[in-house]
């Protein structure tokens, strides 16, 4: 099912965005920094699901992003199909000071793609950029992987705040842009099907068949840090 929305309705909608990545890469702290401007050198390890709703201003419009956070240990990946449901954006996080967390990115991408459609706006996030002396993954490597997979890319530090808002905003803005394009589409197909209006409030992004070919291209942008 494909939902279209018009511009006036955009503000009432929630963009569900999921944080994924190995344990202890800083998912919860990225969320804490973004939503409450807080950072805890030790915060409780997440087991179930936590989320925060944050208002974001995009082109003068207030958009609500609901950001979900969960456990990172490998065995939890199979518990999370409900976690991904309805997500339109994802932050795929690794820790630049631990190569192993970068090596897992492929598996997380597979996980994301089995649970949601290919159009989830995804940004690859190399977190803990403040740990300069302990760096194990270069910025260039992150960029190359992001380009190969058609993901946005940014290096962040939840500790010193750098790029945290920018990473979330990149995802939200792109979702917004895709929806704006759909608004134009829906105006062309006006009144063909209005049943979508009564549908649930969560946005579902789905590529149209005729747009499938370039769906990878529009995500293959790269924001350097």
């Amino acid at each position, binding site marked *: 099912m494909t939902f279209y929305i018009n511009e006036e309705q955009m503000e009432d909608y*929630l963009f569900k965005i999921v944080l994924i990545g190995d*344990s*202890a890469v800083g998912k919860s702290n990225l969320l804490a920094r973004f939503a409450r401007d807080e950072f*805890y050198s*030790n*915060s*409780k*390890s997440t*087991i*179930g*699901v936590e*989320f925060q*709703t944050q208002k974001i201003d995009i082109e003068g419009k207030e958009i609500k992003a*609901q950001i979900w956070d969960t*456990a990172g*240990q*490998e*065995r*939890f990946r*199979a*518990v999370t*199909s*409900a*976690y991904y*449901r*309805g997500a339109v954006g994802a932050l795929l996080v690794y820790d630049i000071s631990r190569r192993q967390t*970068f*090596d*897992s*990115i*492929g*598996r997380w*991408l*597979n*996980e994301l*793609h*089995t649970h949601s459609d290919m159009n989830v706006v995804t940004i690859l996030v190399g977190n803990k950029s403040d740990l300069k002396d302990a760096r194990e993954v270069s910025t260039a*490597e992150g960029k*190359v*992987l992001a380009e*190969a*997979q058609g993901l946005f890319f940014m290096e962040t530090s939840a500790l010193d705040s750098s790029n945290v808002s920018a990473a979330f905003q990149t995802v939200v803005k792109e979702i917004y842009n895709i929806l704006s394009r759909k608004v134009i589409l829906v105006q062309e197909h006006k009144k063909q099907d209005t049943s979508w209006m009564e549908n649930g*409030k*969560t946005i579902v992004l789905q590529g149209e068949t005729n747009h499938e070919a370039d769906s990878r291209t529009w995500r293959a942008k790269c924001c350097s840090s």
Partner: protein
Amino acid sequence: MFGTQSRREISHEFQPSMQYWKPSIHTRRANIVVKFQDLYGFTVEGNVDDVNVLNEVREKVRQQGRVWWALEASKGANWYLQPQISSISESVASLKLSSVANSIVLKRLIRKGIPPILRPKVWLSVSGAVKKRSTVPESYYNDLISAVEGKTTPATRQIDHDLPRTFPGHPWLDTPEGHASLRRVLVGYSFRDSHVGYCQGLNYVAAMLLLVMKTEEDAFWMLAVLLENVLVNDCYTPNLSGCHVEQRVFQDMLAKKCPRIAAHLEDMEFDVSLVATEWFLCLFSKSLPSETTMRVWDVLFYEGAKVLFHVALAIFRVKEEELLMTSQIGDIISILQRTTHHLYDPDDLLTVAFDKLGSMTTNAITKERKKQEPAVMAELDQRLRRLNSIKVDDESPSVSPVAPR
């Protein structure tokens, strides 16, 4: 052996505080959020009402203590301990009779709460941990700990990540000594059952066990009896299959015991695993206030894993009306999280759990688990196959960082 022997003696000084927390003049105003320590040393942030509730709970704990002492006076010390084979002496028949009578009294008593000071002894006995320990040499724990010292495995690496992230800020758990104790218990267990290894969530369980049991060794045996006897099999194994089974059984029970909520959740496509995964893996220790968690565990160790269902259903039940008003999945999660965090009075929860939901027999639950198992295994299997098929389709294995097209 001297080194390991001394380790066995390690018992932390942390004592449940029975002092009343007295709000100062400034905090007597409503809506002022105050920070204070609860019975087990956890920092609680709440308003004056919460403080009052916690003071009432402290008083109830004292009263319940008096009930236990009175029974000790009439029935003799240790009357509640499970009879050991070796202790059966004169008449087997009379012993059986008295033990049946005792078990009825004990069940009622345990549902009302075990005094914190008696918890180590009662838990070890009623859970079967004493029996389990008696099957191995006395030096088992110390031998295990010295044998695994200095070894690194994926389990130990994950444990090391989680030590400072387990109840951060707790006055004993979040100290070098607390971390070291927790580490030994978790690492020791990860070698005892290398199939389980370490699963996130066990850190919270083991930490609470350390606070209650006072010695690492007792905490270790409680952890062992939990995973090996009390809980459903494979709860913490690498595919968490047991945990998945419990979620499905819970979903089914919710439909039977709280049909209105279940129907509403189904309409909203709300999956109970979003909240219940944490409940079943941390045994509520990450969700409920400490004394409420301990009261749940009192019953868990005596009556078995069905208790988790009672409690989980009760949490939904106490917020039934509010949950029926929701229209977004996020609101359901928020309501349930807020509710669990504020259940300071254990009786508010346990009265619903055990008196208002009707009975659930362990047999019925076992049957339901058997029914759900094949579907869970098929689902997990299907998931693996789906993941593998993606890997095959994907020409550039995405684990490789350099994959130009």
